[in-house]
């Protein structure tokens, strides 16, 4: 096949306004450019996973050479993905989901970091660092996937999730003040987990405001400018980097090579969890929010 | 003219109506005979509209009794009153501008035909009846689906009256039907009232215009501040006396000199 004719579509479950997915967009764009293939990014505007299923069906109808998709809800997405696979379209699962689920729907492979596992790893690490009682700031309570991180974290710590997951909304001032209120009402909290820049940035501001910055254990998912600064100044202990760039970039490269030369890595790729700490932040700093 | 020896078709006994802190009717009694045009007169805010609304089931009286065709009646909704045979043309028109004339004409009384056991609207019948009835009243519609919003105020009033007449009301209530009408439209309405009355329908007619009242009324009841000032029979009262009563028995602002007496 002529090189420029290959076309891949990446479908995510994120609502339009979710900033984190930007890195993914940049990742496929870069891979597309480097490999000389056509790439597209699609998502349900409100983050409704049922709408996402329609988008996968739509993508299948437009007959691309491959589909890269998240598996945000196995029940909903398994059908459309399987149909696409059966139709002869190569599928790679990225970001959410698990290697087993990827195999089950007939995908070539899985690239990413299972949400629950990442949360669990974070919880185990935090437990080792002395956390006993935690607050999980969830800015996307309606999205089932990220909540899994809180569940994993709780299990890692070996405590009940209970009331520890906060429905914070996305308004930064509200998040900041909700965190302040929660901390003031629950003085025994000694660990905070945020699920991304949207909740992490105001939480940093909150901790700076009430003087607990550096004092309370603070871990977060994903990276961003403010988070990097937070890690640098010690407000944040670590950021869990699932390296979204790889989640987007690798599948395009793999699919291209598979279509062109029939070569395929023998295993799934775990893009994370990698714990980013104050050591070795320069590259992260430079590309936070863009490629990191 | 009404045959006063017959029994009244509707009797209102000591009707009271309170709206929160406002006492709109403080005990009003009235009876209407078939074939009679009973005029209801009175000042602004005297309670005329409120009174006929209790008659037509819009309001439930706070106190008092309604006897219709000899039986006590308790209208829960305007439907009940309509089903009993009381048709009302309200002061603020009961027409829906965005809807077609035919749909307005039959609103609440839609003709139905059964198809496969289900009641469907009989649109052809509705259209035809509407066109016919409107033509009888002297209004040529562009079509039965013309929206009421495109009719003039006088035309709308005519639709409302002919609708009430068509549905074979035993009692026809008209609340200030002529107040916004031109001279020609007014005489049409008065002629209609006269015609309907001759067919044996009881008419309750509200107006502020003594001359309109004198033109068609058989009896005249004057309301004042929620109470009756009494009922007079045609011929026993002069227009001037009636006018004085309508003003609530109070002295009126008079125009001096040449202008006097022409109100």
């Amino acid at each position: 096949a002529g090189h420029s004719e290959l076309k891949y579509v990446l479908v995510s479950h994120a609502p339009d306004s979710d900033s984190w997915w930007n890195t993914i967009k940049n990742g496929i764009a870069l891979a597309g450019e480097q490999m000389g293939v056509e790439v597209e990014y699609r998502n349900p505007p409100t983050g409704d996973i049922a709408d996402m299923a329609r988008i996968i069906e739509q993508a299948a109808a437009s007959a691309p050479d491959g589909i890269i998709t998240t598996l945000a809800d196995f029940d909903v997405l398994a059908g459309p993905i399987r149909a696409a696979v059966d139709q002869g379209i190569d599928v790679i699962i990225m970001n959410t989901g698990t290697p087993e689920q990827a195999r089950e729907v007939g995908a070539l492979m899985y690239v990413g970091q299972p949400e629950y596992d990442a949360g669990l790893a974070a919880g185990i690490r935090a437990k080792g660092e002395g956390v006993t009682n935690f607050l999980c700031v969830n800015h996307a309570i309606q999205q089932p996937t990220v909540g899994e991180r809180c569940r994993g974290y709780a299990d890692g710590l070996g405590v009940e999730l209970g009331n520890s997951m906060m429905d914070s909304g996305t308004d930064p001032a509200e998040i900041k003040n909700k965190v302040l209120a929660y901390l003031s009402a629950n003085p025994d909290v000694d660990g905070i987990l945020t699920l991304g820049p949207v909740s992490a940035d105001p939480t940093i501001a909150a901790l700076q405001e009430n003087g607990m910055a550096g004092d309370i254990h603070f871990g977060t998912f994903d990276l961003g400018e403010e988070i990097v600064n937070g890690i640098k100044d010690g407000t944040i202990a670590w950021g869990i980097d699932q390296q979204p760039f790889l989640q987007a970039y690798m599948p395009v490269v793999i699919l291209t090579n598979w279509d062109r030369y029939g070569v395929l890595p023998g295993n799934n790729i775990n893009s994370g969890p990698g714990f980013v700490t104050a050591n070795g932040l320069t590259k992260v700093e430079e590309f936070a929010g863009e490629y990191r | 003219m009404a045959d006063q020896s017959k029994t009244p078709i509707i009797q209102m006994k000591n009707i009271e109506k309170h709206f929160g802190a406002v006492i709109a009717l403080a005990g009003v009694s009235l009876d209407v005979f078939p074939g009679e045009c009973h005029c209801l007169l009175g000042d602004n805010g005297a309670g005329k509209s409120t009174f006929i609304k209790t008659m037509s089931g819009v309001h439930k009286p706070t106190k008092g009794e309604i006897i219709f065709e000899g039986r006590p009646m308790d209208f829960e909704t305007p439907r009940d009153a309509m089903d009993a045979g009381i048709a009302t043309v309200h002061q603020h028109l009961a027409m829906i501008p965005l809807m077609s004339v035919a749909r307005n004409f039959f609103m609440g009384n839609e003709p139905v035909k059964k198809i496969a056991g289900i009641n469907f609207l009989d649109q052809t019948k509705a259209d035809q009846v509407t066109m016919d009835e409107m033509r009888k009243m002297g209004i040529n519609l562009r079509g039965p689906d013309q929206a009421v919003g495109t009719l003039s105020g006088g035309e709308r009033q005519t639709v409302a009256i002919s609708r009430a007449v068509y549905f074979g009301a035993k009692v026809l209530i008209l609340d200030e039907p002529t107040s916004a009408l031109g001279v020609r439209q007014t005489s049409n309405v008065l002629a209609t009232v006269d015609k309907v009355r001759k067919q044996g329908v009881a008419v309750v007619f509200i107006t502020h215009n003594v001359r309109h009242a004198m033109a068609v009324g058989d009896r005249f009841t004057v309301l004042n501040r929620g109470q009756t000032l009494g009922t007079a029979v045609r011929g026993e009262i002069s227009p001037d006396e009636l006018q004085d009563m309508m003003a609530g028995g109070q002295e009126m602002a008079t125009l001096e000199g040449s202008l006097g007496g022409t109100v």
Partner: protein
Amino acid sequence: MTDASKTDAPDTDERVKEMSSFRRSLIRPELGGMVGTIAVFVFFLLFAFDSGMFNSQGVMNWSIVSAQFMIIAVGACLLMIAGEFDLSVGSMIGFAGMMIAVFGVVLGWPMWITIIITFAICIAIGAVNGYIVVKTGLPSFIVTLAFLFILRGFTIYIPQTLENKTIIGGIRDAAEGDWLGAIFGGKIGGGLFEMLGNAGVIATFERGSRMGEPVVDGIPMMIIWAIALIVFGHVLLTKTRFGNWIFAAGGDSEAARNSGVPVNRVKILMFMFTAFCATVFATCQVMEFGSAGADRGLLKEFEAIIAVVIGGALLTGGYGSVLGAALGALIFGVVQQGLFFAGVESSLFRVFLGLILLGAVILNTYIRRMITGER
């Protein structure tokens, strides 16, 4: 009557300029929707013809999306014509799905009981909405906005309390073989499509367990429901006396009440019907996808209202058409999916949506003024 009044009629005509009968036959509430539909199809035929949008799979894709919009648009349309609207539709969709998951999966009730009870609960909530609106005279915007929050709150709270997550799966398994479930899930016409597939009219799967089967293997029940609801809504609105009451209640509720139309009953029933449509949507969705999540139905209330308004209904009630609303939903669905097919940057979708909405209402206003002589 005397004959003098007969002269009224030429009076009216004399002062109105004539309009050609062709122009008059065109002017109907659905005109805007029809023009829009044609425009949208022409546009995508030109710009996305070879993108797969018009092969069997592509057609099925935007048909399903449009059918989804249609299901909620029919309810929203009748309610809007009756003079009210419902901002809680989206939350109701999430809530209904979650109820099915809770009863059917968490509590393990038989699916048909689950579905019936869910419908009963949701329709009752619709009735409560309506009851509050007609009894207090509050604007439905406020009342249903309150329910938007209340229902969404429960949709998040209940599964979180019961199951520690905001998504509950396994509904498909629970519905396996259930007669009522099959009415909402499943597809029909499989035989026909197989024939078409064998005849090469539609593409077939190339590999996997379903190799050789046609890629489109039946018409999903969602589409059947959409068609059924449109037919029902259209007949109800235009062919029955109840339809006349809907128009009357929305046009001027006081006038309608005085004429003997049971306005309160009409409005409450329309709120219930809207809830019914939302529940149909939710049930079809969970039956097809097998899980209920707290994110389901977000913003669907706006999408329903937009479809209805694009279809020519008047936001303030008393005017509109179910067919128009269906066309509005079709336009909405085709544009949304079509932009994906055409490869337009997805964030621009909202910009298009806003512009289409504005353009459509301006066109519809113009048409409506011509029809009703409104000023």
